[in-house]
């Protein structure tokens, strides 16, 4: 299947190794990645939307038009982009007055939102269109005895009204995809908690991030399974900052390594750790690599 790739900003700019992992692991599953010219930032659902909600939906509609013109559905790889593009589609499809107002703006540049493209996060494409069996068939090195504590984050699942990825109170999509590559998954106590990254208050952010991390550390997991790049930044660099702040006085020196799902998929497909950028993490994935007899 061919789909328009919506890379967003955070992954291609800050975490290109996540993009590399996707470009290497997805074609073997039968997805043709189409790079479409003309996309801008989704725009981000925290800052841009807080500045101007109508401008935000208009800019998102322009991105949707770019895919419509290419005649392709969109696949996203960032929870924030998924939220923006899904919410904008929902609003424009439900509210005809809003659609008229937005289309008036788009007409200035010769565009019109028609509502003909679907927006899907890559994990839903894998689950619904590719299927677990095809994923299993690409696995060369199953992640045997690797325990992954899953953290879904907020925007992959909520609001379910238009996200339609999974049941936000009992999600399984990540568990299904992680088990498909031979690892085990577990649910930690604070699995539902936000990483706090979007609060404009440093100590509030840190309290939420720390609460999630302490909960994950109780699980004796080998790593933390991530799908949201914003969560990843909270738990990778954010974890280092927290440790420095506490100077390890309470003996919580043990670190837990966050890892993006498609990097794990890459390892399972036989890619080397550096090919999916694991050497670039602030917190190294030692425990997983040891179990797989790999060196970072």
């Amino acid at each position, binding site marked *: 299947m061919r789909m328009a790739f919506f890379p967003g900003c955070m992954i291609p700019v800050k975490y290109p190794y996540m993009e590399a992992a996707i470009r290497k692991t997805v074609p073997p599953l039968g997805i043709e990645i189409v790079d479409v010219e003309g996309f801008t930032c989704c725009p981000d659902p925290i800052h841009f939307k*807080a500045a101007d909600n109508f401008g935000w939906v208009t*800019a998102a509609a*322009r991105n949707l038009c770019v895919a419509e013109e290419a005649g392709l559905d969109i696949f996203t790889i960032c929870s924030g982009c998924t939220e923006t593009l899904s919410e904008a589609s929902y609003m424009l499809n439900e509210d005809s007055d809003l659609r008229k107002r937005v289309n008036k703006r788009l007409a200035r540049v010769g565009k019109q939102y028609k509502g003909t493209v679907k927006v899907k996060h890559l994990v839903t494409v894998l689950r619904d269109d590719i299927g677990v069996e095809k994923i299993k068939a690409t696995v060369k090195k199953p992640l045997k005895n690797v325990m992954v504590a899953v953290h879904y984050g907020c925007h992959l699942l909520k609001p379910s009204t238009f996200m339609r990825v999974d049941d936000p109170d009992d999600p399984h999509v990540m568990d299904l995809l992680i088990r498909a590559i031979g690892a085990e998954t577990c649910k930690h106590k604070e699995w539902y908690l936000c990483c706090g990254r979007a609060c404009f208050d440093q100590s509030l952010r840190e309290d939420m991030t720390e609460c999630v991390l302490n909960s994950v550390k109780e699980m004796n997991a080998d790593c933390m399974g991530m799908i949201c790049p914003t969560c990843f930044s909270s738990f990778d660099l954010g974890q280092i900052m927290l440790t420095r702040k506490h100077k390890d006085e309470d003996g919580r020196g043990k670190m837990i390594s966050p890892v993006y799902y498609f990097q794990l998929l890459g390892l399972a497909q036989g890619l080397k750790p550096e090919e999916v950028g694991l050497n670039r993490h602030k917190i190294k994935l030692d425990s997983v690599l040891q179990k797989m007899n790999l060196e970072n």
Partner: protein
Amino acid sequence: MKESKIEVNFDKKRELEQVLGADQVSYCYQCGACVGDCPSARFYEGFNPREIMLKALIGDFDEFLEPDSIIWKCSNCYNCYERCPQDVRPVEVIIALKNLASQNKTSPKEILEITKRIKETGYSVPLVSTTNRMREEMGLPPLKKIDTSELQEILKPETKANKK
């Protein structure tokens, strides 16, 4: 029996309702379902989405438009959107209040910085000198400059001439 002194400022409330996202605020019946799962309420005493909705309902929300007001503690997790039995979408009402604060130029400076960067470069994250080097090392093509002329054009507010 004491006389209730609450007065609703309907003009103010209508002003808020006209901002995209806040149109359902009148349906809030103050049940508090938004509070139970709110991470900001859990970690910050004084943040209470039900109380924010109450002030929105009675049109008494000027305090939220002050710099560093409590609305900026919202984590944008969308749990309240998920839980609200009335489809008020409290987080969207909070975002509408943030829109009013932004018009008032009282929103945090990151809001303006990031919005400006998106309009000018098409990216929310700054491209630094190491970005394309890291991409090259990962075997990825360099990031191209994004043409933002269309984006800038569609974000211009309506004038009397183009409104018709």
